[in-house]
């Protein structure tokens, strides 16, 4: 199997709330022959893409991370110019800032001027921001992933949930924004049964999970999970730490509003991979609010 070293940007949440996402990714990547090399220094990407035309300030943080990747490329530390991201929101922000940097001459000059003053190298625009799912599809290939599966997921009905920032806007998304298939194909490769969910691209409520308007997230989480259940799903997989928080941790709040509501496990796609590859300890399942262990035992997976 191919051996490659790729630069990797974890982002804040993977070092804090979503440690299980990083842990399960690193183990699956290793099994597949990919070494993810964390940037020696990185900072917040900004979490949400800056959309106003005149404010370049919010792009500086994102571009500064890309400079660090270019430094690694020039030092010959990584196989190619790709930066792997895991968090859907980091992916979206970094890719959008990179795109705008390449297209906007004024922005390029101003940001480089700022970076130089800050003692950084100028950014040449040579980094490709990708999501780990793209590496699985385009580099490893689902047929090779299938070869690494050692646990039988045949009895598990799995509903992929994409959310927003992995697919939209169109020029940034990793798959068709209306009919994505990448996570479905991954589930099939892992031997699980795919369950379609009409709400798989429906916003989970994002940052409304904090503050006074939590009901917005409660309603959306309920809608997404109940739809998955109606179509027969046992569990949901996702790639965004904020979606995972809203869909998993906020189920407690859903139950407060709707006492008859039943919990459903929500896993990162890499946790499912770690389970299928037989690395259950590294899947970090104990950190999920809705624990999937009983379900996995019931279905004969472990």
């Amino acid at each position, binding site marked *: 199997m191919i051996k490659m070293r790729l630069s990797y940007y974890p982002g804040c949440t993977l070092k804090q709330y979503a440690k299980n996402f990083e842990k399960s990714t690193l183990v699956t990547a290793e099994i597949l022959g990919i070494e993810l090399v964390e940037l020696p220094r990185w900072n917040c990407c900004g979490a949400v893409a800056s*959309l106003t035309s005149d404010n370049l300030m919010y792009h500086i943080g994102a571009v500064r991370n890309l400079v660090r990747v270019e430094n690694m490329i020039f030092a010959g530390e990584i196989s190619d110019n790709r930066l792997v991201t895991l968090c859907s929101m980091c992916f979206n922000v970094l890719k959008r800032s990179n795109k705008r940097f390449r297209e906007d001459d004024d922005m390029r000059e101003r940001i480089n001027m700022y970076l130089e003053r800050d003692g950084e190298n100028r950014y040449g625009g040579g980094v490709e921001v990708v999501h780990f799912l793209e590496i699985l599809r385009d580099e490893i290939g689902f047929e090779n992933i299938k070869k690494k599966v050692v646990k039988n997921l045949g009895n598990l009905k799995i509903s992929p949930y994409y959310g927003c920032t992995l697919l939209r806007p169109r020029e940034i998304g990793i798959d068709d924004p209306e009919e994505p298939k990448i996570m479905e194909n991954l589930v099939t490769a892992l031997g699980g049964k795919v369950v379609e969910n009409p709400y798989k*691209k429906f*916003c989970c409520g994002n*940052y409304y999970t904090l503050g006074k308007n939590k009901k917005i997230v409660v309603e959306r989480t309920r809608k997404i999970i109940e739809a998955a259940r109606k179509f027969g799903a046992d569990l949901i997989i996702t790639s965004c730490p904020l979606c995972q*928080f809203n869909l998993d941790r906020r189920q407690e709040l859903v139950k407060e509003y709707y006492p008859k509501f039943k919990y459903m496990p929500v896993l990162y796609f890499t946790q499912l991979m770690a389970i299928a590859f037989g690395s259950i300890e590294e899947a970090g399942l104990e950190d999920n609010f809705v624990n999937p262990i009983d379900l996995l035992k019931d279905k004969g997976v472990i």
Partner: protein
Amino acid sequence: MVGVFKIKKKNNDFTAKVMELSGENINLCEQCGICTTSCPMADDMDITPSQIMHLVKIGDESVLQTEAIWFCASCYSCTVRCPRGIDLSKVTEALRAMLLRKGINKVELEDIGEKEKEIPTIALVSISRKFTG
């Protein structure tokens, strides 16, 4: 919103400002309503996304007083479907920015700490970026 609306210079200035800040040509909007039917937040909004576009187009500044511009969480559902290619999420971002840049916060960070034992950093950063100036 029924009735005759006379567009004055003041209205034109407002529309121009939103267009500049968002980088989007709002005049392309033909009020088809696809944005509203695609919007996961439309149910909770006081006016719909297509109404936001209409108010901006005629330069009615009352759009800044609506809750709807805050409900938009930039999910880009409307953006991928708009047949006129308008990025509505940039329009609502511009409207929010017009308020945030005057120092008008939508949320006070003291209210967020709450009793949450563990909240993901990403949620905290996002809400600060979207709701505070």
